[in-house]
């Protein structure tokens, strides 16, 4: 009896291989790789250094925000304000630097703005019980309007004394010719992955998404964690905004418009579950990559750009469909 009990308790439910095979992220990654292979063969333009450089750089902004969004989604929430927060943070950076302040001051102001907005969202949700959808929908409108107020709805393209530094941060390629935004994305993804797997904070994020009431009863500081998660989400939008400003070399009040939907699509394609409790950092990147590869390939294959939305929407539905099929099988 003791031996069988020992063996039963010591047994692993599934091996490493089966758990990889059953993850949505893995299959989306396969889809991305297959799409890339197909495009390399079908077109001469896809596998060129220039195009690859463009793709990697283009998807980083969505991917960086998707990392923050993934944390929010794991807790069972949603943040619709990220596109507008990106715009506002870019604009704060631009306006402050344009006024002659150094880049350090500009970045501090921008990051501070992000943290205040995220903190506001989080407090309203965690302490006052607002539905995340409502409060971040309000913030979507507020943040973009504030960006217009801050800039008087003009385009800012001169960033004062540190103009060149800012452009180098966003547009340069300091390491083996890899675009800087890609490097930031990789570092942030590793950091997010580490936090989710190895820290108490990460464990609590999952616990809140799994059963918020249980987390409260067992002494998890649910409210504090929720506020932090929305601050991280806004911060990721702010950081993406700062990098994007350096890359574009100009800020308008319509950057990041509609981006929240792309970001959420990326997180969901990568395996995050909008019901909460499930999601990974690598999934956020892979989901963002799939979206960008689809977009890029449509252009290269000469398909009318109006079809983009159909393909990206289809990919979102398809990715979740696989997950649904799997859970139907499990329940039977």
């Amino acid at each position, binding site marked *: 009896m003791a031996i069988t*009990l*020992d063996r*039963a*308790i*010591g*047994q*692993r*439910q599934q091996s490493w291989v089966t758990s990889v095979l059953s993850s949505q992220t893995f299959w989306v990654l396969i889809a991305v790789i297959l799409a890339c292979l197909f495009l390399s063969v079908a077109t001469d333009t896809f596998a060129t250094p220039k195009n690859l450089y463009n793709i990697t750089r283009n998807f980083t902004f969505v991917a960086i925000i998707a990392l923050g969004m993934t944390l929010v989604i794991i807790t069972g929430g949603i943040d619709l304000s990220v596109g507008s927060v990106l715009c506002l943070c870019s604009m704060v950076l631009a306006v402050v630097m344009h006024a002659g302040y150094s880049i350090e001051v500009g970045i501090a102001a921008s990051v501070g703005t992000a943290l205040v907005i995220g903190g506001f969202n989080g407090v309203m949700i965690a302490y006052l019980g607002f539905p995340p959808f409502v409060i971040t929908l309000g913030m979507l409108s507020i943040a973009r309007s504030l960006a217009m107020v801050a800039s008087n709805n003009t385009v800012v393209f001169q960033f004062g004394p540190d103009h060149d530094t800012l452009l180098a941060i966003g547009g340069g390629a300091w390491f083996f010719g890899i675009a800087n935004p890609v490097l930031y994305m990789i570092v942030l993804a590793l950091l997010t992955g580490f936090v989710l*797997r*190895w*820290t*108490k904070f990460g*464990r609590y994020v*999952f*616990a809140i*998404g*799994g*059963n918020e*009431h*249980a*987390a409260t*009863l*067992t*002494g*998890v500081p649910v409210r504090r964690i929720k506020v932090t998660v929305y601050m991280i989400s806004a911060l990721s939008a702010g950081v993406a905004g700062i990098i994007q400003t350096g890359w574009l070399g100009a800020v308008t009040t319509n950057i990041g418009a509609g981006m929240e939907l792309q970001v959420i699509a990326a997180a969901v394609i990568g395996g995050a579950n909008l019901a909460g*409790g*499930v999601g990974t950092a690598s999934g956020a990147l892979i989901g963002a990559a799939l979206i960008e590869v689809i977009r890029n390939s449509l252009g290269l294959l000469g398909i009318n750009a109006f079809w983009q939305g159909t393909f990206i929407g289809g990919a979102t539905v398809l990715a979740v469909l696989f997950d649904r099929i799997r859970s139907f099988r499990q329940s039977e």
Partner: protein
Amino acid sequence: MAVLELANVSKHFGAIQAVNDVSLSLQAGEVVGLMGDNGAGKSTLVKMIAGNYRPSHGTMRMNGAELVMHRPIEARQHGIEIVYQDLALCDNLTAAANVFLGRELRRGLGPMRILDYKSMYRRAGEIFKELKSETRPRDLVKQMSGGQRQAVAIARTMLSEAKIVLMDEPTAAISVRQVAEVLNLIRHLRDRGIAVVLISHRMPDVFDVADRVIVMRRGRKVADKAIAASSPEEVTGLITGAIEQV
């Protein structure tokens, strides 16, 4: 000395007297069945012991020292553990993660301390073994049977040196075979010298496992006697009010 002593404890919410002048004591290694109809005040009573509510009147003493709690989490620090009716489990986490929820083991130094998966899996495995439950620490709770879920919730109470375990309807929603499993888990806690308070509507369970039964009706304690000296008929009478008091 009694582990826990309540002296003339009352609790009212506005004009509603939920618990009225209740005194009782719990001994180490004793299972007490707490019975009563809905609204009889048993869950309010237990919530005071669990630190959710503060008594309006009366005192609680633990090992002779006065017990005042402001938040549920303080109960745990005093060695009072609660198994909630819904078990308070996160389906998306592993059994070990649930056992350690809120008090994760970590290793490393200073701010760079990371979760110690290995120790948590090992310790959780030891507890399941002690509970004689075939529950694997690495399994997701989502895929577990009712009995295994109970084992996970009860394993939580065994992490620290608990003195009192409060169980809210642990056998309400599970199969017959699993009920036997849970009653065994309760005996296990008792054998470790823990005082167990079992809130239940199920007469057979209480008479099977409890040493003593306390019956509440309309906020008052109407009976407190050894199981051996009582009978299901008497307890039913006390719950409904057919028997006034014993």
